């Protein structure tokens, strides 16, 4: 695997899987503004995943869709934090959102300084969009920071963020993969 693939695939997998998890709030978030927010954030994360997969695909001679949907579950390198299915737990959802966005900001900053101009250019674009995710996460952090359930959730999820074990997958991830790849597996070469 190329250096670019090794660098970008774990990030793309994080963004794709978190995008799926965020979209699970569509239609059932605690109130309408958050329904819109989580749906929009999900759409952005999946857009970032697509663009990152595309950079890898250009190099490997494949496509973004093949990387996103045609790999076996063991090949994904997403962190355990994004694999968790948290609906309908709002406190843990916001804890993950805050932890992820904070860590992702540092990662995107590193990519912006990459020697690879395509990687640095894409990271700069992603950062412009992520700024709005960070504002949203910070707003919720400020609102919930003294709530015991939220504080507990942050303490519980923090170790998952620190963990770099990306080769092991949770049973929840297997379920997500089944659903996410269903169309591609049922109809070969399906596009929409």
């Amino acid at each position, binding site marked *: 695997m190329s250096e670019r693939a090794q660098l970008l695939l774990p990030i793309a997998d994080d963004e794709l899987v978190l995008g799926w998890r965020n979209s699970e709030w569509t239609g059932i978030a605690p109130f309408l*503004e958050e329904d*819109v*927010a989580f*749906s*929009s*954030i999900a*759409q*952005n*994360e*999946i*857009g*970032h995943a*697509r*663009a990152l997969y*595309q*950079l890898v695909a250009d190099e490997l001679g494949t496509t973004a869709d093949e990387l996103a949907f045609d790999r076996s579950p063991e090949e994904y390198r997403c962190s355990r934090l994004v694999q968790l299915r948290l609906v309908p737990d709002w406190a843990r959802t916001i804890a993950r959102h805050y932890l992820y966005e904070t860590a992702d900001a540092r990662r995107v900053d590193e990519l912006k300084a990459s020697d690879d101009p*395509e990687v640095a*250019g*894409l990271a*700069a*674009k*992603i*950062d*412009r*969009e992520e*700024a*709005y995710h960070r*504002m*949203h996460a*910070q*707003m919720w952090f400020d609102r919930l920071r003294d709530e015991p359930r939220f504080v507990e959730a942050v303490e519980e999820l923090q170790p998952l963020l620190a963990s770099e074990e990306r080769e092991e997958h949770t049973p929840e991830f297997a379920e997500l993969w089944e659903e996410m790849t269903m169309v591609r597996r049922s109809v070969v070469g399906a596009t929409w």
Partner: protein
Amino acid sequence: MTEAQVWEALAEIPDPEIPVISLVELGVVRDVEVEDGRVRVAFTPTFLGCPALEVMRDQMAAKLRELGAEPEVIVISDDSWSTDRITAEGREKLRAAGFAPPAPREAGVPKLVQLQTGSFRCPYCGSTDTALDNIFGPTPCRSLRYCRSCRQPFEQFKTI
């Protein structure tokens, strides 16, 4: 075929989600090259997750084929599109249609406190007595605001 003719043709394509402005006014066409009947268009997406991206690309290719050219539309995913690329005419058309145009891009990314200030102008009555309702809106590129003066909600283009 000349580059000017290509720009003219692309200027006729409306944005798929906000058809009051064209793709050229939106600033997503970055570069046009014409060589021996082949047309190469470099195009920058607004937001990476924008579902209109493929529609825009296909519409540009179809339009150029109508003119008898062999089109190649290249998507460039870097930081070169910002809302600053929306033309003055485009901004005015957006405002007239009830979308508040974006604030200029600054050196750093915007902060929540800036969005919460009243410096954003209502596209209906012109008042700056407006409040942020939701950072996110019906598409990735828009936020929701409320005008306390004319009591009208409106959509504000996000600055990126």
